[in-house]
């Protein structure tokens, strides 16, 4: 039982990391229909920005704020400068753009900051001992990650559901033509979607760095799980992204724990089998809207 609970906590902690990155992926997908493979490397780039800010002596929270703002600008700029060039051609073309962005951010980070990892956290908010009840422990590191994830999700929820701006964003995602007709600046909304997605990605990156450390490959594999999480939950559903991330984190941990060792390790295979099974039942993810069919 202790082991089960411990695995559950661990699964939720790593799952929330996937969830926040997936949230960014969903925001971007809703904006331009791009499945953003570059999300991880863009987050990594933001992490390095935060590191650079802090290495000039800036405090943690100001550096985070600066990073979020720069990520917002970076995402919006990427949409405006690059993604818009392939708008309306084909979804696959925007996928190529995403792969291109992946390579560009990967290369830029390597060029600017070099290949060595950087010392980055855990910061005071995330450090301090662990509290244990019986054999089950939760550390400040995981607790901090959970708290930030929950706050981020809540803030985004408020933004989308309780502000005019959020309404405009949702309207643009739902129906671009109608939004334009009612006077929403659609182009600006698309850039904002990318900006928001990138900023949320930066948060995911800073969280990931607390437990994974900071180097060029930190987000290389996180993003794969985040993409899976976004698809599992439904690519156009922020709630889905969070749920999807948590499911993947927990399922992977439990599969790793309860597979007989004679079989060998199979946690990844089980996690993806679960995704495929869920998609069999709900082809647009758990919370996704069905794709409209047109003749």
């Amino acid at each position, binding site marked *: 039982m202790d082991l089960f609970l411990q695995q559950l906590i661990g699964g939720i*902690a790593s799952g929330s990391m996937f969830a926040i990155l997936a949230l960014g992926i969903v925001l971007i997908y809703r904006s331009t229909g791009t499945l953003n493979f570059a999300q991880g490397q863009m987050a990594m780039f933001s992490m390095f920005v935060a590191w650079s800010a802090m290495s000039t002596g800036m405090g943690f929270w100001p550096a985070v704020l600066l990073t979020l703002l720069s990520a917002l600008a970076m995402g919006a700029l990427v949409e405006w400068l690059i993604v818009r060039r392939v708008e309306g051609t084909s979804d696959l073309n925007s996928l190529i753009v995403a792969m291109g962005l992946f390579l560009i951010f990967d290369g830029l980070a390597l060029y600017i900051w070099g290949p060595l990892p950087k010392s980055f956290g*855990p910061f005071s908010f995330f450090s301090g001992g*662990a509290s244990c009840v019986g054999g089950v422990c*939760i550390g400040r590191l995981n607790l901090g990650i959970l708290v930030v994830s929950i706050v981020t999700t809540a803030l985004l929820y408020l933004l989308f559901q309780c502000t005019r701006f959020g309404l405009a964003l949702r309207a643009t995602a739902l129906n671009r033509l109608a939004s334009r007709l009612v006077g929403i600046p659609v182009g600006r909304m698309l850039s904002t979607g990318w900006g928001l997605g990138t900023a949320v990605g930066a948060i995911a990156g800073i969280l990931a760095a607390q437990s994974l450390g900071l180097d060029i490959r930190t987000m290389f594999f*996180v993003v794969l799980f985040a993409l899976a999480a976004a698809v599992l939950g439904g690519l156009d559903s922020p709630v889905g992204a969070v749920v999807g991330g948590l499911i993947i984190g927990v399922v992977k941990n439990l599969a790793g*724990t309860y597979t007989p060792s004679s079989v060998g*390790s199979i946690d990844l295979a089980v996690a993806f089998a679960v995704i495929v099974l869920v998609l069999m039942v709900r082809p647009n993810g758990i919370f996704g809207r069905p794709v409209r069919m047109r003749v």
Partner: protein
Amino acid sequence: MTLSGKAWTWVVAGLLAAMFLGAACVEGVGEFPAPVEEAPVPGVTDDEVVLGTHSSLTGPVAVYSQIALAINAYFEYVNETKGGVNGRTIKFLIEDDGYSPPKTVDLVRKLVEEDRIFALVNGFGTPTHLQVVDYLQENGVPDLFVATGATEWVKDPEARPMVFGSIPNYVGEGIILGQHIAETYPGLKLGLMSQNDDFGADGMTGIRRGVGDALDIVGEETHEVLDVDLASQVDRLHAAGVDVIAIWATPQHFATAIKHARLNLNWDVPFVLSLVSANELTVLLAGPEVIEGTVSLGYLKSAFEIDDPNVAKHHKLVQDYMGAENGNTLTLYGQYVGELVEETLRKAGRDLTREGLIEAAESITEFWCSICLGPVNTSPTDHDPVQGGFLVRAEGGRWVRFGDLVTYEGVLPGDMMVEDLAR
């Protein structure tokens, strides 16, 4: 057949154009090597010898590019200060495979068949090099000092006479660390963590052999390269009541494992780790306090020993020839390989042939490179240059040597290879 004439034209014309463009474009724009009489030995002219390597300058493991760059820096230093080796300067071609095996195949074959390298030096990465090792063998291309400790390179020199290892092989390293565990923690419970490939499997083979029956192995966990963290694995060992953990993982993975144990579980279980992750990368990723007290193996001097004249010289060398701020474990390793190649070329003499090079590489005796902690010895039946080192313990973010020089020489390769590795 319903293929119309037009379609045929397209298919055939397309294929032809493809072949021709492909061949002509890539080659045509570059230099036109004049079709002069071919040198009898590939890559060797009167004043130059061409060596090549495949490395990962980009991609997820780009950090290891520093090894190839440091080797190159050392060769440039040799060319400049000593005029090369035996009157020939060394030209070093580095190809970037991004850690993708199919690309390694393309690039290594290009190095051999088009750039006509004399020998491949320090190919980087087990999965990448596995894809080309037999090709080099069959074509008689010396495959010197591969940059991983997989036993695959050294376990059967008769079947693979061309390939040589460079770092202590993972089984041998595991034996030394396993013996340390057996002596330090007798009667306790041991947990194993390893990457689910031959890197991890080799290490665990060695650990088991070294530990013998001094400890009970109560937990065995593996992870994949693309696992994000090892928290789940550590939790399981924690629940199994493990007293000490032996881990074979990359610096990134090891950092997540020890961080989770220390910060999320308040668990100060001792870690014994492969030298692959006992370097500055781990310190930067996990922080010096977290890794305090972990034990590993060191076979070269460390970058922080700046009082040692040779280490100081190394820092100067990477500053001058590589443009780096400072040396580190990876660049030190690069210099060690560079010196080893220099020594091999020197022994091979002025009349370079590939056979002569292999002969030279097989007859290195008591060679001390400037930063080595032990002698390098090879023979026709021993392609594993360094067979041991010192135990090192992390103190304040540095792995400091303790105890005497330990070696697995004599235990390996010989008998163990066949029985333990018959997988």
